């Protein structure tokens, strides 16, 4: 194992990979800092730049974006009072008041250092968890895989903000999109309507970029007439602080740090739940365990440390699920799965054992990106304050063109750009009709695997009861049923006036 570590680390430290990783962190910090540009969108925009790279260099770049993006959102949350990304919603609760009280530097760096420590702490379970779970998953038969994927879809659908029913419809639509084209077992054409382009099915990335990035951008366009908050004393705010004092302050709250890291990690492991839930839940837990809960929201360090350590730990959790099972922990890892597939690598239980150099390279890239974020952010902080004020009228066309290039570059076909455009419209319509996007994306990613394992299971043994009677498969299906029941219960409680708020399940 040490040999694998050293090999992975030495590959990541090679100048080409290292520079790409650092560039990814910069892109993540910038993308995360700009309100309305999510980390997923940033990863999607950076993706075409990785097509010409070797797999590790490409994935290391995307990991850099992912890790850097979490910290980029913190800057906007602190200085603008609006979350740069969905995963910094709760960060604003205390970071912005602290900045307004005249301590913007302290607020930003408490978050940065807490993020670094949370990210490093979560890195240990990332390595152990991914390797252990992947070796466990190697013992699965098609029944277990099928039931695990059903469980994944049911969790995502039942946690949907809008409604369980709409979550299920979105997931089913995602699954249906994958049946277009040649069937995965014998290559028979399905729903191609005579089109050669459709014989290979919809290109996953063109659909993803359209349904997610295009639609998200249009939502931002809608909101821009609501007025942009002004940057908090962008020119004059003093961001200079004593890092030693800040680090001591973070360590003094070791219990908060540890608990929030675990919360972030756990939420990250859950498929497609995303950083926003980790951020809010960690804040909530920190408040519940605090002796001065009444001071939360007034600009105290506890809230910032909890939310930012949970955010970075959430990245590690997502990578565990992605590397062990090939299931995305959130929308960002969904794009990364697409990137791996484009590079000819199928993520899943066999990934770590068949491509150990790449897997351990990814672990090393994660640790390195987490460490690099702090000095890069320190160097770029003033620049970032300027970047966040770039007007949306310039961002929209630039992002759309980069999205179009990303779609085109998959296999140099203009038809992919039309697919991007079509799914951009579909995604917007879905958002306007309050259908959640994450279940659709997950259905799109898991569709082929669900079908292959379902057919294999039936062909191996025609008795469908095996899905229930095989212990692990049965357990997964029982958990799926429980997840649906929980979703229905939450819907009913939400329907009661003054009931629960909707949970945040975003990409």
């Amino acid at each position: 194992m040490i040999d694998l570590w050293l090999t992975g680390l030495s590959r990541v430290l090679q100048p080409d990979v290292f520079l790409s990783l650092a560039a990814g962190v910069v892109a993540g910090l910038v993308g995360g800092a700009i309100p309305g540009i999510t980390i997923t969108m940033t990863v999607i925009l950076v993706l075409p730049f990785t097509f010409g790279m070797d797999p590790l260099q490409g994935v290391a770049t995307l990991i850099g974006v992912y890790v850097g993006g979490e910290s980029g959102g913190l800057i906007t949350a602190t200085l603008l009072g609006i979350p740069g990304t969905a995963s910094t919603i709760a960060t604003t609760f205390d970071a912005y008041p602290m900045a307004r009280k005249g301590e913007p530097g302290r607020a930003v760096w408490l978050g940065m250092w807490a993020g670094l420590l949370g990210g490093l702490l979560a890195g240990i379970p990332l390595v152990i968890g991914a390797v252990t779970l992947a070796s466990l998953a190697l013992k699965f038969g098609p029944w277990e895989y099928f039931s695990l994927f059903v469980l994944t879809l049911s969790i995502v659908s039942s946690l949907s903000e809008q409604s369980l029913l709409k979550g299920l419809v979105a997931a089913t639509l995602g699954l249906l999109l994958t049946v277009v084209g040649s069937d995965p077992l014998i290559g028979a054409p399905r729903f191609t309507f005579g089109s050669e382009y459709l014989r290979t099915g919809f290109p996953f990335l063109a659909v993803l970029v359209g349904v997610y990035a295009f639609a998200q951008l249009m939502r931002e366009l809608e909101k821009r007439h609501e007025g942009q908050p002004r940057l908090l004393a962008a020119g004059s705010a003093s961001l200079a602080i004593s890092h030693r004092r800040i680090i001591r302050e973070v360590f003094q709250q070791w219990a908060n740090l540890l608990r929030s890291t675990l919360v972030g990690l756990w939420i990250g492991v859950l498929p497609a739940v995303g950083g926003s839930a980790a951020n809010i839940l960690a804040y909530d837990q920190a408040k519940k365990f605090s002796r001065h809960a009444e001071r939360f929201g007034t600009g105290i360090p506890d809230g910032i440390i909890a939310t930012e350590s949970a955010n970075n730990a959430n990245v590690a959790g997502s990578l565990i699920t992605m590397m062990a099972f090939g299931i995305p922990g959130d929308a960002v890892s969904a794009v990364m799965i697409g990137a791996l597939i484009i590079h000819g690598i199928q993520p899943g239980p066999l990934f770590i054992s068949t491509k150990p150099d790449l897997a351990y390279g990814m672990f090393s890239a994660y640790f390195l990106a987490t460490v690099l974020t702090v000095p890069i952010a320190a160097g770029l902080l003033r620049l970032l304050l300027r970047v966040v004020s770039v007007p949306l009228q310039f961002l929209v066309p630039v992002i759309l063109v980069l999205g179009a290039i990303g779609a085109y570059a998959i296999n140099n076909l203009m038809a992919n750009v039309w697919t991007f455009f079509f799914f951009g419209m579909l995604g917007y319509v879905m958002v306007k009709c309050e259908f959640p996007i994450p279940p659709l994306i997950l259905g799109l990613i898991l569709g082929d695997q669900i079908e292959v394992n379902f057919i294999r299971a039936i062909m191996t043994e025609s008795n469908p009861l095996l899905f229930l009677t095989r212990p692990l498969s049965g357990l997964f299906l029982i958990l799926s049923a429980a997840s649906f029941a929980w979703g229905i219960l939450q819907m009913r409680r939400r329907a009661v006036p003054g009931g629960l708020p909707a949970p945040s399940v975003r990409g």
Partner: protein
Amino acid sequence: MGRDAITGCLLLGLSLWLYRQTAEIPRPHFVSVGPDVYPRILLGLLAGLSVALLGADLLNRGGRRGRGGGRPEARIHRASYRDVFLTYLLFGGYTALIPILGFRAATVSFVAVLSWCLGPKTVRHAVLCLLVAFVFVAAVHLMFEGYLRLLLPRGILP
């Protein structure tokens, strides 16, 4: 009928139409489970969910009417929808123009026109839009064609 009910009807129609299309899928004799089985299961599921969506909307509307109020819609500026519509329209035109004008000319036009349409209508802003468009396209060209060796689309015009 509410928006969910209409969506339910549309999805039900789509699932029934696609279900009919599954008859066209070739089914070889050497496989016990044909390539049409899985899509049929999914389409059956979608049809069921569509009916549930339709039913839930009709029931909820009755309940809401009974309580004397609907769901408050977020107030969105009319100009916002105009911007969204314009963006889709221009992007559709841009996609159609790339094979004719080529990537560079089409992208300069698209970026300059869209950023001008979305911003203030002043000469200064127009000049800035053109500048941004040229710099962006030059940077993309250098990065993709120069460094990454990715050939961007050429047009049919000389």
